[in-house]
């Protein structure tokens, strides 16, 4: 029976029984293998029967081949580094400003009442819509790309930081004060640790968003970078190259997310001690 039986629903709910690590891993590997197999099959069929130009649906080995080719020519590295540089610098700058400003705004009502309306005004506007403005002001160079990432990723990180401070249980502060904590102590020993989970969540959102927006800024007016590779491939229908670069981007985004999660697990060890 494909649907869970009543007995399972009763014992575990909709989710179903928890599976052991080994079983879960087996399913994951199996699913991914099946996916690659299906993709290869589709690609192979297209190659053989040619209902349309096989360039439109390259099989996995062709995609990998395109990437390997670029790597061998020494070009792949250049593009990867270019994209990474922009992301790291842009995200880094945004994180520093967002967290600093967010921590300040979360505590000082005056700052909050000044900064928040500006944020609320700008937030509904998709950052992508503002990209051309950046280009007009700062030109097509690195500065506009990095600046754009900073602008785009600032908002979610700022908002989550402010929220992280705002949701702190006032009783925690009162408890600390009645133990003799003063302003400095309160900030470093109570506010910062208590806001940290939200701040880190914001960082994760920021990382994802950086990769989200870097692509489009590398489409318009860039000479290098993974986004450039993808858009450039359009001119000569180099779909394997486009797919390969997209996959690489996904990999980088995943790695970035994993890094923040690692940081989370170390810094927030008190949330799940074991």
């Amino acid at each position, binding site marked *: 029976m494909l649907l869970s039986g009543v007995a399972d629903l*009763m014992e575990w709910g909709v989710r179903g029984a928890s599976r052991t690590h080994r079983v879960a891993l087996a399913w994951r590997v199996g*699913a991914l293998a099946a996916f690659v197999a299906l993709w290869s099959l589709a690609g192979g069929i297209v190659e053989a029967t040619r209902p349309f130009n096989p360039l439109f649906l390259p099989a996995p080995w062709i995609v990998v081949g395109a990437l390997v080719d670029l790597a061998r020519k020494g070009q792949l590295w250049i593009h990867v580094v270019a994209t990474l540089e922009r992301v790291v610098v842009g995200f880094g700058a945004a994180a520093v400003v967002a967290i600093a400003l967010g921590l300040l705004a979360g505590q000082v009502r005056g700052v909050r009442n000044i900064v*928040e*309306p500006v944020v609320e005004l700008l937030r509904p506007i998709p950052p992508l819509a503002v990209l051309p*403005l950046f280009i007009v002001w700062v030109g097509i160079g690195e500065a506009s790309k990095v600046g754009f990432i900073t602008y785009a990723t600032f908002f979610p990180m700022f908002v989550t930081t402010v929220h992280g401070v705002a949701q702190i249980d006032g009783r925690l502060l009162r408890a600390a004060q009645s133990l003799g904590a003063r302003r400095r102590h309160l900030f470093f020993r109570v506010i910062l640790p208590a806001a940290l989970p939200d701040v880190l969540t914001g960082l994760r959102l920021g990382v994802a968003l950086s990769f989200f927006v*870097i692509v*489009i800024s590398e489409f318009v007016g860039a000479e290098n970078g993974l986004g450039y590779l993808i858009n450039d491939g*359009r001119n000569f229908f180099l779909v394997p190259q486009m797919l390969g670069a997209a996959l690489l981007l996904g990999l980088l985004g995943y790695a970035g997310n994993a890094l923040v999660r690692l940081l989370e697990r170390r810094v927030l060890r008190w949330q799940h001690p074991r």
Partner: protein
Amino acid sequence: MSRDTGGRRARALALLGVLVGWAVVAYGNRAFGVMAPALLPTPGEVVAIFLDSLRDGSLPRHVATSLARVAIGFGFAATAALALGLVAALCVPVRLMLEPIIEFVRPIPPLAFLPMFLVWFGLGESSKIAFIGYTTFFPMFVAIAAAVLRVDVTLLRAAASLGADRVALIRRVIVPAALPGIIVALRLGFALALFVIVGAEFMGADAGLGNLIMEGRTFFVPAQIVMGALVLGLLGSIVNACLLAVERRLFRWRESAAT
């Protein structure tokens, strides 16, 4: 920690302050010639362009084009996400097979596929619609499945001890219990579509708000960019507010305040 009691008026004032600040900076720039005047459009210029494009019908046309693409693409994606999301949540083998694949595709920024959609579908409407559909499908699918999976097991137990069989459990407990989460997923999906349509219209489009904004760059009319961006922001806010209002009416029985 902080409470929002007296903040409302202060916020309105601050908002006004932003507008005033913008006006001061822009008009001051005109007066003292700090930057090329074209680079820093004044509120007046933006309003002028807005009214002009309203009058000659180009703005409504662009808005309608963008909205149509969003609506159609979102419509397809939402239908697929609902169907597949429900199936995946209720059918364990399907879920176990789909989960890893979704995890694999999710980190890839959807915009990275935009050029591929242009290659596959050409420069016409279908490429934008397909792209919107692709972009919004995955987050909605994941969120809908999560909403169904989250249904409290005690609700199921309560219904079963009142005589519900499997079909009744799905129809009369799981679906109503998951519905708020599902609607939120759809609302967020629509917001994502609006977020992304601009980018999609930067390249290879001859109409739409994104195209309007890009023209502002091509023909060096920053006021047009600002106008387009503000209209887009306004559009997003209005749509979001409407959807939120609908959501709140539908789910008057909810404990926590809707976000």
